[in-house]
């Protein structure tokens, strides 16, 4: 029986026995349902708050200087603020105390000379508008409009008040190509690598859970010797990585598919050409995902196998989960300077190559040198090969040790004898 067939046998067994497990099925199909319910519950306060902001809010204006020329209620553009003329400050105060006004502005007669304006708000704190900035901005715009309206024409007044009201954004590549740089396009450049990072983290954590738990159970159930009498540790580890990795990827595939089905309307927008999809990053993500997964999987399985029970194994394996999550903590650094020193260092570190490379390729593909991509991928591939070798040796030691966890000295000694 060939080495590959033995590995395939282990992989098939691990895959089938995992994907047919009740817990796996519940997680795979129950998780999206749970997340949907969770998202709904979380969204309810936001919806309620959103509705609240859509309600008309009335502010009083005591225009002693007759600067704003309010004769009736005026709704500020792009807001729900309504400005209502009030004759005197005491009248406005009574209305505010009654709750008829959300606040009021007093424009004194000498406003143009002194620039002092009084703003009155309720003493009670408002979470939706704690500083009252929205109403101030709206009233400021109204004042500007009225001041300019008497001196310049309407178009000039509008340009002075907001020159970027209808601005468009474009991005120019080093080759001189122009593409849309609007909010959606910019968002995609961050969303794609972030999605990659999150999926990678989830798959590493979920699969490592299966890997470590399965191996710990084999040790506890005393199946290990039977396995080792049929296949060597490299074959068992390889089979487990493929089988359980496949189960983890299938799970993510199901979730992604459900996500795509739910958001199928977005696809035509992506392919319409108006949005700059970071295809280079997406293309890099496809081969980097399994390589990085093998890198972490080998180390996690090797380290986890040293535990004397499932809980201890999980604790040992969590070290690598934290290392895998490190690029998330460094995200701000890479986002602010995609080609800065920190980004370069993280690109060449095999523990973060995959995620940082995808992020940089998404943020600024033109600024990423080909040799940096090739070099860092080569370092990652070599590190993965090394991780598999080291992981297999530790795995062998871990499998053979039962009861107490082996000492570091034991690990070194037995690993040396492994071949």
């Amino acid at each position, binding site marked *: 029986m060939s080495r590959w067939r033995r590995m395939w046998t282990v992989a098939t067994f691990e895959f089938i026995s995992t994907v047919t497990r009740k817990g796996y099925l519940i997680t795979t199909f129950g998780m999206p349902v749970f997340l949907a319910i969770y998202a709904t519950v979380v969204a309810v306060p936001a919806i309620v708050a959103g509705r609240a902001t859509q309600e008309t809010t009335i502010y009083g204006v005591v225009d002693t200087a007759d600067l704003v020329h309010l004769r009736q209620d005026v709704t500020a553009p792009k807001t729900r603020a309504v400005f209502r003329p009030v004759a005197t400050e005491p009248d406005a105060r009574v209305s505010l105390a009654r709750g008829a006004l959300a606040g009021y502005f007093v424009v004194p007669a000498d406003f143009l000379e002194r620039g002092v304006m009084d703003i009155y708000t309720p003493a009670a704190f408002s979470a939706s508008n704690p500083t009252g900035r929205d109403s101030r901005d709206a009233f400021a715009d109204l004042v500007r409009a009225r001041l300019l309206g008497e001196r310049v024409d309407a178009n000039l007044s509008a340009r002075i008040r907001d020159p970027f009201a209808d601005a468009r954004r474009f991005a120019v590549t080093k080759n001189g190509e122009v593409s849309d740089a609007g909010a959606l396009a910019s968002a995609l450049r961050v969303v794609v690598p972030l999605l990659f990072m999150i999926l990678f983290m989830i798959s590493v954590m979920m699969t490592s859970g299966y890997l470590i738990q399965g191996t710990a159970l084999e040790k506890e159930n005393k199946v290990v010797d*039977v396995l080792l009498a049929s296949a060597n540790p490299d074959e068992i580890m390889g089979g487990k990585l493929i089988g359980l990795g496949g189960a983890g990827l299938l799970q993510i595939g199901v979730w992604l598919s459900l996500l795509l089905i739910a958001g199928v309307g977005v696809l035509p927008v992506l392919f319409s050409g108006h949005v700059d999809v970071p295809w280079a990053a997406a293309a890099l993500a496809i081969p980097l995902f399994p390589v990085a997964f093998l890198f972490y999987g080998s180390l996690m399985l090797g380290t986890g196998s040293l535990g004397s029970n499932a809980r201890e194994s999980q604790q040992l394996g969590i070290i690598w989960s934290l290392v895998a999550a490190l690029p998330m903590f460094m995200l701000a650094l890479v986002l602010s300077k995609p080609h800065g020193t920190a980004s370069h260092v993280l690109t060449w570190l095999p523990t973060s190559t995959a995620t940082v490379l995808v992020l940089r390729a998404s943020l600024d593909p033109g600024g990423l040198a080909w040799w940096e991509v090739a070099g860092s991928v080569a370092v990652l591939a070599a590190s993965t090969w090394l991780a598999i070798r080291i992981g297999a040796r530790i795995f062998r030691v871990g499998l053979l040790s039962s009861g107490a966890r082996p000492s570091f000295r034991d690990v070194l*000694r037995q690993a040396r004898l492994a071949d």
Partner: protein
Amino acid sequence: MAIVVFDHIAKSYGATPALDDLSFDVGSGEIFGLLGPNGAGKSTLIRILMDIIRPNSGEVKLFGETRRRAHLDRLGYLPEERGLYTKLTVVDVMTYFGALKGLTRADARGRALAWLAKVELPEVATWKIERLSKGMGQKVQIAATLLSDPEVCVLDEPTTGLDPVNVRLVQDLLIERRKAGRTTILSTHQMNQVEMLCDRVALLNKGRLMVYGTVDDVRRRYSQPEVLVQARGSLPAVAQAAETRAANGGWRVTLRDGDAPSALLRALVEAGAEIERFEPQLAPMEDIFLRVVKEGRS
């Protein structure tokens, strides 16, 4: 013909020696008893045979050549500390173990069902392992080990915890293997089984080979030169009898140094004795085991 050869095997765990220059072989088609007290080095030797651990020095030869990983497909192993995947069904686990030995999944599944019938447990095929009783689980493990029909099979205490009916069932399976020309290495502390089943034995103590040979030879070697004789009337005095004393309704005769039981029998018949029972006294394996271990301690 030797099918397994241990050639000067030595193994130590740190400063603690486990096996000390061990050399012996196991013949093709025999049931070979691997005996020894706890900690004698039996499990270490078996794990070296199965390539689970490596010796510090020495070599294992299988099927006439230096042991290779490919040979593992032709070996079966039932460890003493054994278990199964508790959450899976019996037939799935057996199929997996068969597939690991090179069988196709379909073949392994077919054989698993056949072997379950053979060990009188056809109804448990779809049960989860956790539902099995201890004895059932043990029979399933034996069946899982034997379903690939390994040329050499190592069974470490296969009958521990089984009732007498199932012990007999397992013994019959081993005898059947011997008839089919398959080799079985049986590690056990049950000496009655050794006498009943084994062709040859190796007794280890503190990592050293203390006793090695056919069961009859070993028993003879460690026996007192005595014969139990029952006869009508009195027993005539003959030169081959150094000492005669009454025992169990007959006589226990100690042979003169250098004389064989057959010489005594011939002399008694020639002297006119009417012999009804003539039984050379062989030492039980249990006594030999205890004696060797005791000598090792002293």
